[in-house]
Each structure stands twice: as C-alpha cells, then as structure tokens.
C-alpha cells in the first residue's frame, strides 16, 4: 500500500490517473471499514464512494504527519457515521431512548466466546446489529476509540456509549450462541 508523494500531489492537481491509483490502492480496505458500519454491501459502497469524494476534496490538508491510510480511514469513518445518522433521520433520539437502562449491567464485562466462526458470519452479525450498537461497537473495537471520544463523536454521554457497547456485545454473544446451537443440531 505504497502511495508516493508525487501521486498525492497529482491527486491534488486533479489528475484522474493518480486519483484512480489512489482509489485502487485504498478502496478494498476502506470498503471493509464501510461494510462494518453499514447494514449491507450497497450501503457500504455508497458510503465509500461519497467518502472518497471528500478524500479528494480534502487531500490538500493532509500534511503527511501520519499514514495516508490512517487519514483516509478517519474520513471514511466520519463519513460513515454522518451517513448513518442522516439515513436514520429520527433514529438518533430513538436510539438514546432505547438504551435507557432499567437493569444494572456491568459495562466492562468481558465475554468469552468460542472462536470457530468465519469472518463472513461475524461481519453479517455486525451488520445485523441496530445502527446505534453497531456504530459504538465499531468505534470501540476497530478504531480504538475510548468512551469519551465516542461520546464526543456521536454527541451522546459516555454512559450511553458504555451501555451501547455492553448491549452490542451481549447481542453478538447471543447470536453467536444461536449460530453454534444451529450448527450443532445439524
């Protein structure tokens, strides 16, 4: 995944060949990121395509202080979050309502699961998560966001973030168990 400085400059200058090269280099990995935030492949591709417009629009602000892949990934993640929020127009405060706790949970619970599941199944489970759970889970697990950072990014409280993460984990664990039981019963 090597993109030299000249290609970045050419992309900024609007040279389509360089832009194509940059797209071809990073799109597969970024599509993986988008897929985790979306509920299906079409939505993931929409996010990818719109996010890459932003990448090209803002490439001149990339100062080379970090990796280009990391910079692009940050844009992709931000755009994915905005996209999901926009798509679920009234979901945002519903999501907050959904997490109102009537029971006490240990938000730091560590869930042990068998690991014989293939990535396709795991990805499918993530995509089936409710949008709120999915976003918090992705940010925490894959982007290494702390709860404070998640709260700032999503405009929710840290506690909400913790609760969402807990519920996402529990939901995933149950689904994994269900899948295992189905597999054993065959």
């Amino acid at each position: 995944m090597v993109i030299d400085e000249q290609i970045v400059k050419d992309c900024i200058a609007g040279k389509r060949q360089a832009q194509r090269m940059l797209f071809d280099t990073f799109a597969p990995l970024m599509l993986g990121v988008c897929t985790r935030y979306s509920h299906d492949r079409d939505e993931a591709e929409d996010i990818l395509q719109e996010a890459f417009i932003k990448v090209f629009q803002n490439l001149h602000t990339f100062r080379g202080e970090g990796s280009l892949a990391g910079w692009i990934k940050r844009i992709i993640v931000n755009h994915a979050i905005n996209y999901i929020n926009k798509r679920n127009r009234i979901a945002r405060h519903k999501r907050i309502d959904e997490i109102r706790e009537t029971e006490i949970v240990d938000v730091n619970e560590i869930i042990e699961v068998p690991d014989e599941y293939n990535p396709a199944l795991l990805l499918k489970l993530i995509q089936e998560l409710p949008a709120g759970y999915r976003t918090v889970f992705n940010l925490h697990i894959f982007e290494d966001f702390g709860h404070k950072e998640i709260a700032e990014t999503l405009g929710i409280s840290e506690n909400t973030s913790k609760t969402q993460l807990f519920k996402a984990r529990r939901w995933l664990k149950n689904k994994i168990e269900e899948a295992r039981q189905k597999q054993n019963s065959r």
Partner: protein
Amino acid sequence: MSQPTKQNSGSGKNLDDLFRDAIGQQEYTPSPRIWRILNLKLLIRELLHFNFTNVPKLAFISAGSIVIVASLSYWALKPNGKETAETLRKNPVAAVSESVKPINNTARPPERIIQASPEQMKQPVPAEGKSFQQSNYPVKQTVYTVATIAAASGTEKTVSYSEPEPGNIDNTAELTENITASQEVRFIDPLVFSNFDLLPSADTLRFIRSGEVYDYVREKMPVPSFFSVSLGVAPEMAIYRSNGVSTKEVNYWTNAGIAYHYSRFSVRTGLGLGYTYDEGSYSIQYRSNDSISFYREVIGYYYDPDNPSKIIYITRNRAIYDSITHIADDRTRNRYTYLQIPLLFGYSILETSKISIGIEAGPALSFLINEKKAQPVIDIPYGRLIKLQDNTPSRLSTNWQLWVNLSIEYQFSKNWGLVINPYYKYFLTPPAQSSETGNSTTQAFGMDVGIQYLFGGKRNKK
C-alpha cells in the same frame, strides 16, 4: 464481495478480539461502478469549480478544436445573400428611353468616364439561370459608363453614376452597393464594367449591351418571424453551497412558454410550476434521568454454616440515576411549490430544415407560492423537553436567477417539434437563508424536454 475464508482457531477468546482479528483488516473488491460514479462526480465538481489550472491539456486541445471547427463551419455556412434573391427584370422600353441618355456627355467628369472597348461589347455571357430580353433600342457602337467595379465577391464598392440633364447639368450622386455575388456581374467583365449603370434604387443594376438594356433587380425576401408555444418538463439538480458545505436537492418543473422569433433572434417567456423539497433540521434538547452506575445493597446476611466465623451478605443491585441533558437531532421533509417567470433572449446558431441549435439567456423570477413544513417527531417518554430549535434555512418568497439555455429543436412536422433544453441557473438571490453567516451560492442544472408548436410552421423559417 470476495468471500472471506479465514477460520479462527483456538479453544476460545475474548469477543472483542475475535471480531478484531477476524474482520479488522478485511478487504473487499469494490464494484467498477463505484469508480465510474466517483469519476463522474469528480468531473462535475471540477466543472463547478472551474479554473484554468485544473483543466487537462487534452480538454484545452478539444475546446480549441471545437472553436476552430465551429468558426470554419460558420464561415462556410454563413447566410451569403440568402436573405435576398436577385432576378433579372425585363426593362420597359419607356424606362430605357428615359434613363439611357447620351452618356458621352461632356459635362461628366472625365476621370469617371471609361470607354468600353469593342471586345468588351462583343460576347457577354448571361448569368446562370437568367434570360435577357432584347429591346428595340438602337445599337450603339460606343457606350460609356460611369464607374468601375472590382468585382470580388462580398466587397463593398462605391459606385458613382450620373444622369446629365440637357444643358450640361451634372446630377452626379453617390450610391453604395454591396456586391455579394460575383456571378451576377461576371458576364460583363470581372474588372471593368464598361456598360452598366445604377438606377436611383440601390437594388437595381442596369446593364446595357449592344443597345439592349437589362435591369438587375435585387428582391428582398421577408425576414422570417413567427410565434411558438412550448410545453415541457424538467428535472433539475440544485446545489446549495454555504461555508464550504454543499447540499443537493432535486426539483421538478413543468414549463409552458411562448416565444417570438425574428430571423435568428428570439425572445421567450412563460410560466413554470416547480416542486422541490428540503430537509427540516431540528435540535431537541431534553433532560432525563439515566442510570449512570450501580451499587450493591445489603438486604440481609447469615453466618456460613461451614464456617461460623464467616458472614455471608445477601445483596441486590441498585441503580444510580442522574439527570442528564441530551441533544437529539430530528430531520423532517419540507415541500415547496414555486412559480417562475423567465425572460430569455435567444440566438439560433445553426438552422437546418429539421434541426436548429441556439442559445438563450436571461433573467428569471421565482415566487414561493406554497410551503408545507413537517413537524419534528418528539418522542421522549422518560424525559422533559427543554428546548426545540428549528435550524432549517427559511425560504424567501422570491428569488432571481440568471439562466443560460442550450436550445435544441427537432422539427418532426410542419408545425410540431421536439425541444430539449439543457440549462444552467445561477441564483442571484438565494432561495433560502439560514441563521449562519457566510458565503453561500446556489446553482442548478436541469434538462427541459417538451414539445413545441410553431405558428406558421417551417414555411416562415429559413
């Protein structure tokens, strides 16, 4: 999507690690359509933010080639004398007698008298498609005329003529004749017209040969002028740009227009009814009691039967709640109806019997005639609403736009035609204003497709 095949191994692991390891670095091959759409969007964006630094050389070469080809085509096809027709008219004998004087009159200035040689008088060739009528005017051996013409096509030449009156009175006058077709005069001599005269009318050229008099009359054809009406529909993409953030919306227009055409020029007006929508943005601030932690409440205890010195506490979890302020966003869909009145001035660049292509430009005024705003959904069963803020940009009752049309017409019958008008609008005044300050621009692209009826039909057109 490429099918992941990696299988995890091991007896068990943390759920987070399981997901992180399995799909944290998954890659999928994007479908080719993504790049195609991206490429198109980048192109559109470049056109919207046009500056000469981001134009590839190929585009410059293409644009230059188009300009050159268009210029050459225009030069080759330009209406050279198409608006007039020249016919040879039989000259009445009476007129001959009156106008053809003994033109070797000594009163005429010598430098403007040129004597025709006998060879020049011998065998003039009639112009194509013309026929001459012999008159009974007596043959003269020497004929004088009053001027020469350099008969290059399209050149303008001042021609003097004189009709000396008896008694040596010189009535010399100056006329200007635009000689647009050399073939009309070449049968005499391309350089020296020893035997022609101009009548007082600038559109009549008189030739005298061997005593015969021919009047060459330019007949002006009427300039085509007619009305047309049109009806069309136009999907339109409007792009609002404010503080560097672009939003797009799709508008739909139904347009009825009437135009008056005069020669290649036209003026068009009409009424357009447009439907558009945008997203209402609301900020809902509310407060609710949320659980933030818990503690274990001791509800009883007993001594361990196996170890009486040990106390076993019976506990239950108790939630700790706190009042937390939330800000939730809600988005709604608002619908608007506009009435627009354009005034477009056009010029037809290319016209054939079936197709005409032209450009139109001018101002347009739009009125907001109906507005339906949806209310936000406020669903806070366990909370208390503190503030509801409407962040939706407010629509203005009128706005001005500058239009540029490319007008393409295909005439499929005498009166009826198909019109396709791709257009661009630049909003001189914004259609909506938000509380946020900053620069904002609004532009729109659309394609009006419809039918047109010509009053008078093609017969009035060139």
